[in-house]
């Protein structure tokens, strides 16, 4: 037993032979998604003494979150997850931690938020958000640890830009609901399968009511069912009952706090290990040598994919190889090329800037943040932030380019 009293709350972890508390305290982690897994990761990292957290979640707290999202309570229902998480973490777990909280969609976040982070922790609940984060991680060569859970299963994938597969490698198939949502013609055109009628109904519900349907409201369920059955009867599909429609369009992945806790524990640990590996040179020489010996003998490694099954109590890890033809991390990907920097006056109108860009790069399309439509008469500074990145592309060729937008200051 060590009899020397310590005044550090991190005393027990600092006794580890491979540990450098200063690396953790100097690090910034961007956590996207503050649900069952993200909230636990934020709590874990705060208790480990991380220097800064950037928390992002556009969702509000719902009653059904309270069985597993330990940062939230009944009085928080209706409030934004990221903002409540910030308050609770500072109040309950670590008052000295620096936290920024954003209640926006990830597509609307300025690029600088990604640049500030040392590592990204992806804890989102859908395919499209994962792919969006993946592209930013590859572009900035940022380590990215992604997690996902579904009922009794949890997984953690570690993406090391140069050495491992990214989330887009080998063209993963998007889940069915994503395929439906990304095909606007399905929503306005002819339904090919019965489920399309339910998705059309949801789209029409949004248009008519300008809000999400409440799955606990019998009135909303009736409205959705009526809309779905209008399409179903028109296109000769069997009719829906209310339960079926709700299950189809408002499906929620089953979640268990136990699986969230194991998955987030693995994810948090991989985050810390990745930070240590990236800053190996910060360790004192003696520790560094020991550390290197463990790495060389494969006794310290970061698995590419770890899968936890609560049904069998097994945790398995797998190596994942890069797809050389991957559109995001492959050699010819635009995200792996050096972007061009353009200096512009933020007060210039979007239309002017984009005309100049199109002429300069001989491309027809400009995309950024999920290809939002851009109003021409608005100053570019109201749409983009300094250091944001945009894409220019053309239908004629596949040669897309990434461009960094720098705002001209008075001095420059």
């Amino acid at each position: 037993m060590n009899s020397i009293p310590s005044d550090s709350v991190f005393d027990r972890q600092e006794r580890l032979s491979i540990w450098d508390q200063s690396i953790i305290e100097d690090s910034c982690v961007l956590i996207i998604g503050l649900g069952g897994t993200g909230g636990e990761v934020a709590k874990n990292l705060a208790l480990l003494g991380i220097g800064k957290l950037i928390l992002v979640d556009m969702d509000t707290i719902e009653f059904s979150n309270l069985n597993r999202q330990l940062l939230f309570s009944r009085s928080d229902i209706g409030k934004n997850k990221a903002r409540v998480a910030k308050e609770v973490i500072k109040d309950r777990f670590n008052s000295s931690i620096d936290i920024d909280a954003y209640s926006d969609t990830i597509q609307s976040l300025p690029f600088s938020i990604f640049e500030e982070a040392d590592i990204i922790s992806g804890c989102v609940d859908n395919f499209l958000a994962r792919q969006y984060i993946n592209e930013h991680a590859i572009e900035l060569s940022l380590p990215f640890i992604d997690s996902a859970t579904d009922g009794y299963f949890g997984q953690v994938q570690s993406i090391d830009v140069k050495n491992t597969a990214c989330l887009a490698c080998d063209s993963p198939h998007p889940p069915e609901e994503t395929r439906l949502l990304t095909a606007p013609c399905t929503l306005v055109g002819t339904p090919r399968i019965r489920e399309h009628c339910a998705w059309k109904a949801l789209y029409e519900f949004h248009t008519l009511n300008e809000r999400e349907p409440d799955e606990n409201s019998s009135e909303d369920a009736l409205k959705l069912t009526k809309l779905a059955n209008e399409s179903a009867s028109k296109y000769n599909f069997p009719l829906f009952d209310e339960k079926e429609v709700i299950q189809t369009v408002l499906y929620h992945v089953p979640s268990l706090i136990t699986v969230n806790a194991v998955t987030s524990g693995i994810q948090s640990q991989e985050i810390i290990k990745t930070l240590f590996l990236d800053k190996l040179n910060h360790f004192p020489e003696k520790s560094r040598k020991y550390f290197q010996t463990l790495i060389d003998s494969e006794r310290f490694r970061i698995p590419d994919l770890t899968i936890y099954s609560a049904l069998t109590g097994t945790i398995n890890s797998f190596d994942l190889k890069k797809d050389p033809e991957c559109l995001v991390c492959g050699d010819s990907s635009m995200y792996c090329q050096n972007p061009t920097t353009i200096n512009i006056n933020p007060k210039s109108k979007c239309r002017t800037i984009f005309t100049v860009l199109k002429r300069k790069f001989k491309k027809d399309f400009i995309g950024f943040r999920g290809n939002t439509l851009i109003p021409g008469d608005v100053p570019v500074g109201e749409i983009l932030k300094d250091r944001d990145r945009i894409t220019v592309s053309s239908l004629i060729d596949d040669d897309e380019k990434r461009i960094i937008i720098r705002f001209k200051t008075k001095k420059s």
Partner: protein
Amino acid sequence: MSNRKKDVVWDSNVSSPGTPSDTIERMIKVRFKDPQLPPDQNIREKYININGTVFQALSAARDAFNIPEVVPIALLFKGRRMNPSNNLASYNIEENALLMIVPDQIKGG
């Protein structure tokens, strides 16, 4: 399981794998591994048509371990996730190749 699938997939325990009904079929023995099972039970052999699709190999994997259709699975081969609509031949799979079964479509947050 459809009759068509039975034509191209069968247990390796069968002494004679039979004659494929389609001349372009080329059967090879592969090993499926389901790491969720205990180590002495987690590898099973199957014959698959190398000129078939990954989707057919997924069916064979389900057969080998009795994995129901409702459980989404994927196959890894040499660290690459196999796309169900691709042809197996595009992965250069050889006799006795080890195909790893992993859960697929885990997506919640």
